[in-house]
């Protein structure tokens, strides 16, 4: 049984009197410990896919099962709990709180989880150590480089030990070298058993993933496994 099961998922937006089909009857299943990349040109429905998988948005039609739970039946607070505990978000523009230190940023999801201050600090420090940023935890985001910021964001996503890591163009704002470093970190996490789903338009990045799903006009047009997965050679 898959970790994620999408059953005829549709998402429509109305633009004036036109209806845009961002996602059009998508059937998909993703198992535990998969390393999946959604690729496609802009407007193909990648971001909508991310929002629905991340429980930020609800599909117009269709059923989404996450860990056997039917997401459509959950209320706002239950969805918040899912986002907090089952999903770790990583964004293209990092989306860290600008005035809070790295440590505070990583501790934030634990606040919503209801963890006490001492435990929170301990778990956040562990997560930062995992991304090799333990020595930078008192810095605020503007004092960190792009790669370091994305590491903080990854630590924040990991700190609640989520079932899925959802990354939306995680290397879109980074240079080639930093991209390599971040992807190496993702590969490492995957090797440790983390389920990772990312959206990208860079073939180099997609090549790291086990499975590649190409979207076009809201439909799945390709779904294949990478045979020469670079991560395996690392």
């Amino acid at each position, binding site marked *: 049984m898959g970790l994620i099961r999408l059953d005829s998922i549709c998402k429509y937006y109305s633009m004036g009197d036109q209806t845009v089909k961002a996602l059009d009857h998508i059937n998909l299943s993703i198992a535990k410990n998969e390393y999946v990349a959604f690729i496609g040109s802009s407007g193909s429905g990648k971001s909508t896919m991310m*929002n629905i998988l*991340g429980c*930020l*948005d609800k599909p117009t039609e269709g059923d989404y099962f996450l860990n056997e739970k039917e997401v459509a039946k959950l209320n*706002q*607070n239950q969805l*918040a*709990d899912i*986002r*907090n*505990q089952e999903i770790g*978000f990583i*964004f293209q523009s990092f*989306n*860290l*709180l*600008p*005035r*809070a230190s790295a440590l505070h940023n990583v501790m*934030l*999801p634990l*606040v*919503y*989880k*209801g963890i006490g201050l001492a435990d929170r600090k301990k778990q956040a420090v562990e997560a930062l150590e995992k991304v090799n940023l333990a020595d930078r935890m008192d810095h605020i985001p503007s004092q960190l480089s792009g790669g370091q910021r994305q590491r903080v964001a990854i630590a*924040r996503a990991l700190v*609640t030990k989520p079932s899925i890591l959802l990354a939306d163009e995680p290397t879109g704002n980074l240079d080639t070298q930093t991209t390599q470093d971040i992807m190496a970190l993702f590969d490492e996490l995957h090797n440790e058993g983390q389920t990772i789903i990312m959206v990208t338009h860079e073939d180099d990045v997609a090549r790291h993933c086990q499975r590649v799903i190409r979207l076009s006009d809201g439909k799945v047009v390709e779904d294949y496994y990478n045979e020469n997965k670079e991560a395996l050679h690392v």
Partner: protein
Amino acid sequence: MFSLIESFRSAIISVKAHGFRSFLTTLGIIIGVASTIAVVSVIQGLSYSINQQFEGFGSNSISIRSFTPRSERMKGKIARITPEDVEMIRKQAEGVEYITPTLQSNIGGTSAIKYKGNQAFANVAGTTYTYQDVQNLDMKYGRFLSYSDNQSRRKVTVIGDKLREELSLPENPVGSFIYFAGEWLKVIGLTEPKGSFFGFSQDNFAILPYSTMQGLNGNLLEPDIFLQLQLKSLENLDSIKDKLKRIIRKQHHLKPDEDDDFKIETPEQLTSGISQVISTMTIVLGGIVSISLIVGGIGIMNIMLVSVTERTREIGICKAIGAKRHHILLQFLIEAVVLSLLGGIIGIIIGYGLGVLAAASIPNFPPANVPLWAVGIAFGFSAFVGIIFGILPAAKAANLDPIDALRYE
């Protein structure tokens, strides 16, 4: 509870991060609370000192004074409490511990007091030894009038410090003789100064034995006596008042349809008039200045709304990583409350300072007094303002859609 503490933590971080703006935001509340506290403290100081003055009457004493109703005054009649009335009360009234009659000097223009070429005008009254307790007088030098002073009509007097100064009497005037109304009076005591009240000195007086005063007044004019009655207990206050009323009405031959030509007052009656004025003053002035608190609250709401817009993206991030509606709501609400409470605390301190300053800069004004209830109300009101004006921005923040908020640039 947990999220409450967390919200406080994050609110304080946020207030600190925007130090100067937070200060400007709270300025409205600071001014509002400060002016409220300043006004209340000055008025309360005033009322406190008035109550102090009246404490001298003692809680279980009543006073009787003559009072001429307007209709009688038209007919040229002037009511008096006479020595005969006093005698009758002494004989017939029940439950009275002792009576302290006070006889004002009515010697008119000649009431100047002289000592070695100096002359002064003072309030001269004749009374008995019980007056000291009733008026709470403490002696600085010498002694107060005694029972026998009255019995033997001694020509002695107890004076206040202001009169001593005016006459240039020595620091300890006991033993000096002062001249009043054709008689030399020996000073036997000087009272502790009481200071001034509403700008009038309370130490400008000379007190003579009641009988001596009667002698000085002569028989030319009917004396008018002011009576203070010390009661054994307050339990039968009403029945004692009724009895006194009947005695004096009978003495004055008043017909049933005629009004009383005297007034029986309890200390509560004396103070209630003034305290009523003061409480009205407190409410009106407090009301006016508390309008500025509402204006301050609107200022907080304004800044909080700006802050919500500014932090839309942050709110989106928080929602994406699991913040529930109430987390965001509480965070912004508590931030507003923290801001206004901060303003409240600073305002209370400044207001107290202003009150003390105002009281100190007006001569003879009683010291400012900030009652705890005013601090409580100022504190509670500023928290209330924070909640009321924080709800709208907080609700706006909490209701943001996470996707829209994340996309917000």
